[in-house]
């Protein structure tokens, strides 16, 4: 399992060994057992999300009004909600949705961060100035407030959420990429490539990008947790993925809330899943950062 964890994030770096992934996983498990455990737990959730259709014992909207608000039992491991829907199945499908949003939005955010960060850091001068002032303006506003306002304009829905979250975290993250581009740019090999007449695009691709990759990988990992939380927050406020799609955020809000006093288990599972997923990916991201980017250690 943890081999795949490393595969997901370490594929682009390295060329030392013929099996860098295995090397890296070994290092992760040896030096950062907690981080490796985090990666493993995240992979389990990812697995549940991918195979939700097969694992889930019931459909997401299979209602059985005779079995409403049943406490957890063998046939309903996490109980049923106010419409008699199986909570476990909804949690599993919720994992699917969370993972789809997380990977696509974090991916989009990372791409935006790379493009803005490279342009701003490498070209410097006026380009840098303009991009950075726009990033400043963008970052003045609280994430959630910005999200709420934008969603209220474009309307809720999965693609919208992915694009908005991608933009939001992408623009904020460009700072981090820019910072590391600025330091890589001053290296001798970059100057050498420039004096040999290398085109900017070539230098960016061959020399700068590979060297900022560790930062980018860490950024991507930490963004996954942030995106999952943001999506849940939006869904909780009723601005995320519209019902009847089961998301962890919306399971904690809306009509379900009034029934929690009768079935407290309804309040537990979605929040616990959210916490575990975000916690595990954060721990994993921390370990990754320590291993890949010693300068950012402990920050």
């Amino acid at each position, binding site marked *: 399992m943890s081999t795949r964890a490393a595969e997901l994030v370490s594929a682009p770096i390295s060329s030392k060994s013929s099996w860098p992934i295995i090397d890296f996983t070994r290092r992760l498990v040896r030096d950062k057992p907690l981080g490796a455990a985090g990666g493993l737990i995240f992979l389990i959730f990812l697995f549940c999300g991918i195979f939700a259709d097969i694992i889930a014992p019931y459909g997401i909207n299979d209602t059985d009004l005779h079995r409403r608000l049943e406490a957890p039992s063998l046939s309903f491991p996490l109980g049923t909600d106010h419409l008699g829907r199986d909570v476990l199945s909804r949690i599993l499908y919720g994992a699917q949705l969370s993972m789809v949003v997380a990977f696509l939005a974090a991916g989009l955010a990372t791409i935006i961060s790379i493009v803005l960060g490279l342009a701003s850091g490498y070209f410097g001068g006026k380009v840098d100035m303009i991009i950075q*002032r726009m990033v*400043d*303006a963008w*970052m*003045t*506003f*609280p*994430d*959630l*407030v910005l999200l*709420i*306002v*934008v969603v*209220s*304009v*474009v309307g809720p829905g999965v693609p919208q959420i992915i694009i908005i979250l991608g933009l939001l975290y992408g623009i904020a993250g460009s700072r981090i990429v820019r910072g590391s581009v600025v330091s890589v740019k001053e290296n001798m090999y970059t100057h050498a490539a420039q004096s040999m007449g290398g085109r900017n695009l070539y230098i960016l691709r061959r020399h700068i990008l590979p060297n900022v990759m560790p930062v980018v990988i860490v950024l991507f990992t930490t963004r996954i*947790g942030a995106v999952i*939380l943001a999506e*849940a*927050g939006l869904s*909780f*406020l*009723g*601005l995320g993925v519209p019902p009847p799609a089961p998301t962890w*955020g919306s399971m*904690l*809000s809306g009509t379900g*809330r009034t029934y*929690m*006093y009768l079935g*407290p288990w309804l*309040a537990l599972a*979605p*929040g616990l899943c*959210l*916490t*575990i997923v*975000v*916690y595990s990916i*954060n*721990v994993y991201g*921390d370990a990754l950062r320590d291993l890949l980017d010693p300068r950012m250690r*402990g*920050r």
Partner: protein
Amino acid sequence: MRLIPGDIIDLMLAQNDIATGQDRAAIEAALGLNQSLVAQYFSWIGAALTGDLGNSLWQNVPVVDQLAATLPITFELGLLAMIVALSVALPIGTYSAMRQDTAGDYISRSFSLLMLAIPSFWLGTLVMVFPSVWWRWSPELNYIPFTEDPLQNLKHMLVPAVLLGLSMSAVTMRMTRTMMLEVMRQDYIRTARAKGLSESLLVLRHAVRNGLIPVVTLIGLQAPLLIGGAVILEQIFVVPGMGLLLLEAVFQRDYPVVSGVFLIVGVGVLLINLLVDLSYGLLDPKVRHQ
């Protein structure tokens, strides 16, 4: 210049549809929505400069009044949360740095990571549901202005403030720890120790003061987070602050209110950052002399 939420306002105005189904044009004319978007935007900016943010489209009260009524409430929530966050983060962060790599350090670091992962709306939900199921106790949900009954008011605000503060404390705690570790390795700390200063004086007088500067910056950076968190917690605990106003306005497509809140948030964040910059002078004599 940072405050111009132009494109967003344009977008918002582009999408306006008042769902009354009656005489659309007449309503639009009455509300001034029939002008071009650019014209609307500039008239909004022009009015905003003179302190007029327009009227709410639904309640026909000036947005300024609504903001004046809700801003102090959110401010109080934020202030309380900040106090909670700092009184949790600073001691634990410092302790964690002093006892690096001990069990206490690991526990406090895990705790801060955990606080980053727990969504505040879930914590809020748990606080609402479980005490009421187990002990028939539930948090206060009736808002009473501070001026009427300070104690009752604090009773209501305390739970959301603690939740908000805890979620904020995570990052501050990590930052405090990092900075304290860095400061404790400095030469002047070794000198102070060599001249026989007690450990507690050393930490309080030499280390904390130097380590605190980046932490103060972080507090400024966290201001937007505070406001974002307030939106969710105000909704759960029915605190009639700016967050709740924003949410209602968004659901009702009440654009002047949304723009007004947006403006205040932007100005607020800028002001907090200005205060943070000014506070460097107080904390760090080196800055004062430059």
